[in-house]
């Protein structure tokens, strides 16, 4: 399988619905969640699946980046 190189790029975002305005969605898959717990859970799942790392922008937005 040929690896697509997505190193050091944002591969997904997990955003609280209240903070929707903080992202202007371009090409990155974005997941909206209602609660903080749900956001943690979804971010953790995505991190495990993509082997990427979750970073907290501290404005209701989590980004997942592969290093």
């Amino acid at each position: 399988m040929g690896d697509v190189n997505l190193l050091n790029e944002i591969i997904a975002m997990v955003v609280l619905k209240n903070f929707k305005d903080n992202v202007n969605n371009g090409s990155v898959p974005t997941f909206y969640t209602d609660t903080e717990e749900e956001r943690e859970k979804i971010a953790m799942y995505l991190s495990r699946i993509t082997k990427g790392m979750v970073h907290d922008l501290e404005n209701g937005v989590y980004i997942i980046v592969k290093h």
Partner: protein
Amino acid sequence: MLQYTSIISVGIFMGTLARLYLLRVDYRQYPSYPQGYITHLTIGMVAAALGAVAIPALIEKEYTAVTFLALAVQQFREVRNMERESIRRIDETELVPRGSAYIEDIAKVFEARNYVSILTSLGTVLTIYLTGNLLIGIASGLIIMFMLKKFMDGQLIKDIAIVKPAKMWFKGSILYVDEVAIINVGLKEAREIILKKGIAAKLIPKDDNARATLSNLGLRQAIAHNISIQLGIRKEEDMPEFTPLVKRNEENGEIVVITVAMEPDIECLIAAIERVPVLESAKRKPLESKAGKIASD
């Protein structure tokens, strides 16, 4: 005058012994122990044989025999390639890779060890020929062997830096070790585990040379690899949060290390870091230059 056969066999024996002596000390770096052992011992024996026959060949006026030495050099460069290739392949399967600088260093050492074999057997044979005494030859072989070993012993981190325990803390989602920001950790669960199981240390360079050397990314990767091997690592392939990180304080060139270890024992972390070899390719000596010396005041 002793028979060439006995001189040469003693030379081969001493050269092989030298290779064996150096094989024993590199257990930690060794990727494939029993098979690799045989391979390198055999190549070492061939190297010893080449060194041993060189002197008798010259005495018999077989000057072309020297070209065999050139052939040997070619062969041993092949050993370096072989080692490099095999370690690079294995490196892809490591949770914390060695990195290309470390691999290059290991491969270089493997090549050099064959030259130790050649030089030992050459020295042994030469001494026996000059003195006519086997025992003196063996003694000189041992001396050459120990001297070369001593010469090849590189520096360790503890020679160039002071390693101290360091404190880690979170400011929001950012992980700090002392005053250096390391990484943004998003998941709360991961932050808790890092605070509970993580250990951190600080490397303070002893001089400007050490500061330049420690900034090398290959050396830092080697530190991360060595601590992950020696202390164990609390990480799975899909948990990048717990990768050991080695970062530089851009203000003063100090290096901070953090790892989430299976054995969170700070004394062991310091011991493991202190014993990391200073890679040849990472070494920098700005103090040897005029500009570097003036800039350091």
